[in-house]
């Protein structure tokens, strides 16, 4: 009876191991391919120069600046909101109340909405509705200033996309604050808000930072939401105000790979741009993983 199962056992081991190995191989192949492909082109000059000669030569400096501006504005808008939502969900809300459950459901739903739908929302809400409203208020609708895609609308769209990332991460961090600390603070006569401000938030700062970094990494890698809310094909100048369009690394990879005038000749630039994007997101992800690791060790 047992012998019949022996082969199944081998098969189960083999198949599960194979699946795991497949993932490992895929990751290694992609990384190796992009590193090897971009290694010869990437240089200090590539990072600090603008694209020249119809984007067939030069570097990606404006795209890097645009990406940084995007994630900075995005974090300024998204991280506080996400943190406060996490505080509400873990400190104030009774987890069975209908309000808390609705917000939690909204956060989960938000995490599952396709990125391109966020792009449509950004276009329909920020550009077409808020922007148009602003133009009407400021210039009476004569001048189209805010009702054009720009870096502000793109960043705000992206901050909505990354909101669930921040909320989940901060909530996890807040949960690691020991209950005794809260109780000690309350027992000393501190009010609830004082406890949150002086005890809970300082103790979960690492988690808030982790959430912010993960959100930034996600935001730096997403392209779909900014396709029509502010990213530009090529700009001779860096964005100087919130109502300017901007270049972005991921978008740059996309257009260089699909819409470049000479796709074969710019292969090196495409690889190098992808490598820069990959290094950026990995750097961010690794610091987030490191921080989370430290956080978990603190809890243990």
């Amino acid at each position: 009876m047992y012998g019949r199962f022996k082969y199944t056992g081998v098969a189960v081991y083999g198949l599960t191991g194979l699946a795991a190995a497949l993932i490992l191989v895929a990751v290694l192949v992609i990384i190796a391919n992009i590193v090897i492909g971009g290694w010869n082109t990437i240089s200090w000059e590539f990072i600090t120069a603008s694209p020249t000669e119809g984007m067939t030569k030069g570097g990606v400096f404006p795209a890097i600046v645009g990406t940084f501006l995007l994630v900075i504005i995005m974090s300024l808008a998204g991280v506080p909101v996400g943190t406060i939502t996490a505080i509400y969900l873990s400190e104030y809300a009774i987890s069975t109340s209908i309000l808390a459950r609705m917000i939690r459901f909204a956060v989960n739903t938000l995490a599952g909405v396709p990125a391109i739908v966020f792009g449509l929302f950004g276009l329909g809400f920020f550009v077409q509705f808020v922007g148009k409203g602003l133009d009407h208020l400021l210039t009476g609708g004569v001048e189209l200033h805010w009702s054009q895609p720009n870096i502000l609308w793109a960043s705000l769209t992206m901050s909505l996309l990354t909101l669930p990332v921040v909320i989940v991460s901060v909530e996890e961090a807040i949960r690691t604050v020991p209950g005794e600390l809260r109780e000690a603070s309350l027992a000393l006569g501190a009010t609830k808000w004082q406890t949150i401000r002086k005890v809970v938030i300082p103790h979960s700062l690492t988690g808030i930072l982790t959430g912010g970094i993960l959100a930034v990494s996600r935001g730096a890698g997403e392209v779909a939401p900014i396709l029509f809310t502010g990213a530009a094909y090529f700009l001779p100048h860096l964005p100087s105000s919130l109502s300017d369009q901007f270049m972005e690394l991921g978008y740059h990879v996309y257009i260089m790979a699909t819409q470049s005038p000479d796709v074969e000749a710019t292969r090196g630039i495409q690889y190098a741009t992808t490598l820069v994007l990959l290094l950026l997101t990995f750097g961010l992800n690794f610091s987030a993983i490191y921080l989370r690791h430290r956080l978990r060790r603190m809890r243990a």
Partner: protein
Amino acid sequence: MNKDHPGDIKEARQTTMTSKANIPKPLPSRKREPSDTSSLRNRFRFGESLAEYSIKTISFISLAVIILIFIFVFREAAPLFFPRPHSTFTNEELRQETYGEEPDTTVSVKSTAIAGGRNSTSLETSGGGEGEASLKNLSGTVWQPVSAQPKYGLLPLVIGTLKVTLIAMLIAAPVGILSALFVSVFAPRWAKEILKPAIEILAGFPSVVIGFFALIVLASVMQNLFGFEYRLNALVGGVALSLAVIPIIFTVTEDALASIPRALTEASLALGATKWQTALYVLLPAATPGVFAALLLGIGRAFGETMIVLMATGNAALLSFNLVEPVRTMSATIGAEMAEVVFGEIHYNVLFLIGSIMFLFSFTLNAVAELFVRRKLMQRFKGS
């Protein structure tokens, strides 16, 4: 801490009571005179409730965003169903421009002329209703938004999305679930320490990077291997897409496996079952709701992903069930065409309609994964 005042004790006690119900009630504060602390208490309470209400208000943003997405994505799609008078006028104008076979040399006109010639029979039969986004037009089998007789048949896009999603899921589901099983049951410590970061790295790949890899490398490799007629096709897109879906399925399945009480595993092992028997006959069935949730979330990711399919599927809106022909998915259609449409035109509205459909689908998927599957999982373990 000048705010520390005996009057606070009651306040603190009350808040403690709401959150930690098991702390014994300190009685003395009840005897305090209300007059000596009432002013202070009021001030404190004002600050407290201000904090609480602002926090509450801000945390409603997530909910508000969902509602706003509903409103604003649908708002831009609404004119399709409540047509404005001037929209037909634009079409009239468009048709006059390119109706006759004018010797105009612009590319778009040429292509429309060719397209018009090929579909001349269907043009004649459907007559004047063309170009308007009637239900008949939307349910058609041809997606030709930029032509003399624009056709907004969503069927090729829906089929395309289904094809790519199906391929991605057929690869990602077994790989994700099996590797999760491997990591949580069989893998030695060192293998876990390699695999978990590998999955995190895979999840951290920007989708445009996967799309780039598929476009440049994967497509050529697969064409050389299998001799496809088209370099970019649904299969290449699906394989690339599965790379983005695997981390989700893996993570959710692994969570479900980890949340199974240890007692179940131990009981199975104590009864003489081997490790793999336990994994196959005890752990996997116990985690079924979690695995379902993983699959649903995976489907949600697969059909909503834009950049990978935009770069790797060839983007031809063909109505066919052939897996190695180019396809155009719903998300890629929005991504590729939204930048070129005129705001307020029918084409623009139709793209928003596609977005609305995608939003509704992802919303439903999440609701099912959340309310049905997770709750069931919880019940199962609480009940046992």
